[in-house]
Every structure is written in C-alpha cells, then in structure tokens.
C-alpha cells in the first residue's frame, strides 16, 4: 500500500475510545488489508508519534434489512494503537 491515508481511514471517537486515550491508546478504522506493521508506520508518519503496539481486529458488517431484502454492511478492520509514553495525538482528543 502506497499512501498512509489509504491505510488509516478515520479515528473512532466514542465514550469507550476516549476512555482508552487515558492509557495512550488511540483507535482507528483501517483498511481491511492493512497489517500491523503498515498501521504502525502510517500512524507514526501522520501524527509524528512513536508507536509501541498495534492491536487489530476484523469487524463483521452488521445485518441490515431494507424492506424485505436483507444485506450486510461492509466488514471493516479496527486498530487500537498504543503510543510510547509521552506521545499524544491532541487533535483526536477534541473531535
């Protein structure tokens, strides 16, 4: 993958992830095919921080019904990135 913004799609800012930020963990939606190493490199490049750990998980798209047709939302990948101590991504804390 060539561009870092293709890997990191958007941050997730919810009550849960804001609580995780206390532990220096930031949560993103990432490309389904992205690997932990790619994610680490991308986050370091975009936010200019040091990453110590990346946890990823594949999320299944939810079942949605439109009238009588049923379908699934797209599957996606979630990444929780732990930063080295002293590093912060301030912009995400107020989004």
């Amino acid at each position, binding site marked *: 993958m060539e561009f870092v913004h293709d890997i990191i799609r958007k941050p997730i800012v919810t*009550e849960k*992830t804001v609580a995780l930020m206390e532990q220096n963990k930031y949560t993103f939606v990432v490309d389904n095919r992205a690997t932990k190493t790619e994610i680490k490199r991308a986050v370091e490049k975009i936010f200019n921080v040091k990453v110590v750990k990346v946890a990823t998980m594949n999320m299944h798209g939810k079942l949605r019904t439109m009238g009588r047709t049923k379908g699934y939302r797209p599957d996606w990948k979630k990444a929780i990135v732990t930063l080295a101590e002293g590093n912060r991504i301030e912009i995400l*804390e*107020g*989004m």
Partner: protein
Amino acid sequence: MDDLRGGSNPPVRTITYFALGFYRVFFLARVSKLSAGYGIIWLVLREDLVLNSLIEKKEGGRVTLKVTIPAQDFDKNYAEAIKRAAREHNFPGFRKGHAPKPIIISRLGESYLLSEAASLSIYMTQAQAMKDNNIQPIGDPQFDVEQVNEHEDFIYTLTVEVMPEINLPEYKGVKAVKKIRKISDTEVDEFVENTRKRQAQLVAIEDRDTVENGDYILFDFKGFINDEPFEGGAAENYTLKIGSNSFIPGFEDQMIGKKIGEAGEVHVNFPEDYHQESLAGKPAVFKVTVKEIKKEELPELDDEFAKDLGKETLAEFKDQVRSDLEKQAENAATYDLENSILNIIADQTEFDVPPSMIEMQIDSMVTDFKARVEYQGISWETYLEHSGKTVDEIKKDFEPKALQAVKNFFILRDVAKLENITVADEELDAKFEELAAGYQVSKEMIREYYENNNRVEDLRHDILTEKTLRFLVDNASVEEEEFETETK
C-alpha cells in the same frame, strides 16, 4: 366539525394557532428553565460570589452599572454551561451528558459556550448588583457584555430605567386660585326651559284639517315602484314632523296641503346615493292617508310642571336646578384647582421621567382616544384620513400630556409616602358601597367584580390619589374667585 369553524379558512388558522402555541411553549420553556435551573445555582453561589459593581453613568432616567465577576467564579459558570450543553445536545458515540469537555467545545464552538456562560452569570448576578447599588428598576434591564473569556474576569454592563428620585419642592401652602363659575339666573332659566322642551307633548289640532309646514302628522303610507310594493316602503300610524327632512327629499313638501282622511299620492325619486342600493335613483309613488295633525305643546311653567318632576313648587324646582348647577361648577372648579396645584408643584420639580413610562402613558392615551373616536361611529382609518395625521403625529400631540400625567403620578406617590397617607380597608369598603349605590347593585357584587378582575389594587390607588389630592388642596393657600360666563 366544519360548520363550527364559522367560515374562516381552517388550515390557515390551525397553522397560525399551532405556530403561536409552539412559540409560546418554547418561549416559556426557555424562560422557566432559566429561572428554575439558575435559581438553584443562585442559592449555592450567591454566598461566595464576589460581586464588584459600580455605577458608570446616570442619565435620562437610565442607570448603567458595570459589573465584574472574578475569573474563578466565571469559570464555575463556564463549567456549568458546558455541563448544561452536554445534557441538551446529542453527541454521537456518547451517552447524553457523558461527552467530555474538549469534545463539546470543539463541536459546539467556544463562543457559543462562552455566551451561555455569560448569560448564566448575568442572570445570577443582575438582581444582586442592582440591590447593591440601591437601584429600583422599571422594566427589564439591557445587558452588554464587555469581556468574556475563560480564566478571565467577566465584565458586563447593565442598563436599566430607574424609578426617578424626586426632590419635592415645598408642596404645602401652594398659592392657587379656585375659580368658581357663578351661576346666573339666565342659566337657571335656560335649564328649566330645556327641561320644559323635553317634556313637550304632541296634541292634536282640532281647528284645521290641512297639513302645514312644521306640523306633526300621524299618517299611513304605502310605497310602490313600478306599481310593485317594496320592502320597508309602508307603515301605519307613522308620526312625521313636516320640515324635519327625515324622509327622502320632496316627500315632506308634498305632504303640505293634504287633508285629514283624504287619500293622496306623493311622487318622489330616491336619491342616487340612497343607502339601500336596490332603491337608489328609482322613482316611487307613495299612497298616503293623513289621520291626524298634531302640534308640539310645551307644558305650562307652573307648580304643576314642577310636580311632574317630583317637586312641590316651581320655585323649589328652580332652587334644585340652581344647586345642581352650582355643584357641577364647584366640582369643575375643584378639579381645575387640583390640577393647577399639581402643575405648580410639577413645574418646580426637576427629575428624569423614565422614557418607557411616558411611552406607555402615550400608548394608553392613544388607545383611549381611538376608542372614543370609534365610539362616535368613525373608524380609526377614516379619522386618520380626515385629520391628515399619522399615528406618530397623534402620539406626539399626546406627549406633553403624558409627561404631565407621569410626573403627577410620581409627585402624588411621593407626597403620599412623605405624609404617610394610606388607604384603610374601611375606606375601600366605603368606596365599594359608593360604587354599588351608583350602579344600583349590591356591595358584594362590586367587590367580587373588582376581586375577580384583580382591580382592587387599582381602586386602592385611586382612593390614595384622591386623598393625596385632597391633602394638597387642604394644605394649599387657596383664593376663591367667582367669574361669570356670558350665556349663549
């Protein structure tokens, strides 16, 4: 359902109603939320709130206060405003009220939150600030925020109209002239003569049977247009004064010379501008029969005449008339005296009359005036057209009067206060009795009416005004003077 709506356009009305209703509810909700919610904080914070307020300027009955709230207190209010915003807005990803401060600030904008905090602070402190400076406000104050920032002192100015402070001049011993109009004998006679005319009776004339100008005739008539009778064109035993021009032109003239008991005809054209359009401009024939010719007969001016009016003799009646007229003159003189005393005091008193009160007074005077015009059967628009004035010009005309009225109000209020003039319940009671006698209903009914309409305080105020005026008159050095008016 539809027939109940009485012809108005239901959708239009419904929408208007709903829109209004919504607005009102919305408005009330906001206001009550403010007062209720802030009331609690008020109690908590008022104790430790260090208020720094000082009077910046005073002019034209307005006072401007500069109020400073220390940074730490303002920050508390800022935090409260944020908490409030968290509760009132939805932030996706967060339960209501659980969004963290930076998120709220970035999504709602700092200026919005600061202005919320500012109004919170203003509502909490305005009453205290005014109290600290001994300001008695009229109406609602206006606020201008001068400085609002987090971690900084919050500064705002408050501008409000105040009850004017009056330095009353010496109001006792005011020199005034009471001008009483002298009632002349001619005036009494004239009044009696008018009464006599009102008592006039119609008496049949026996000695002639031909109608003359000035006669009252009793007659039947039946009108035809193109040999067809028309509506409203016939009557029996109708009394008409010849020469009074109460019928269409030409009718009365043609009645002259008609004889009792003889059938006759009257040919007339309805005028072009006749109010009933179907008849306007059409020729009509009236078949008329005169039944009686009458003339007006005035009662003899003697004791008999007086007896009909409830008096024993004519002299007694004249005395009664004289004393009635004198009483009227006396009342008018007292009224003028009271006014002139008030004017003298007002001229010696300098104070800033609150503009909004003058405005209100003018408005109520114009409303009164409008009601009087309309009472005379002239529509307000027609009046404006004929007088060639705009509403604003009329308002301007009333300005001096309104100023006088407001001034008098304050003078009377202050005199009453200084002299400890109050209205006792017994006096209120007596007033009810007086009113009841005037309207010929029971005292309880009057009392109930006033209580139900929340007018008791108004009445009390009226009595107080009366008493204060009487006090001023009693304490003035009054010279009495009689004057005569030439009778017309």
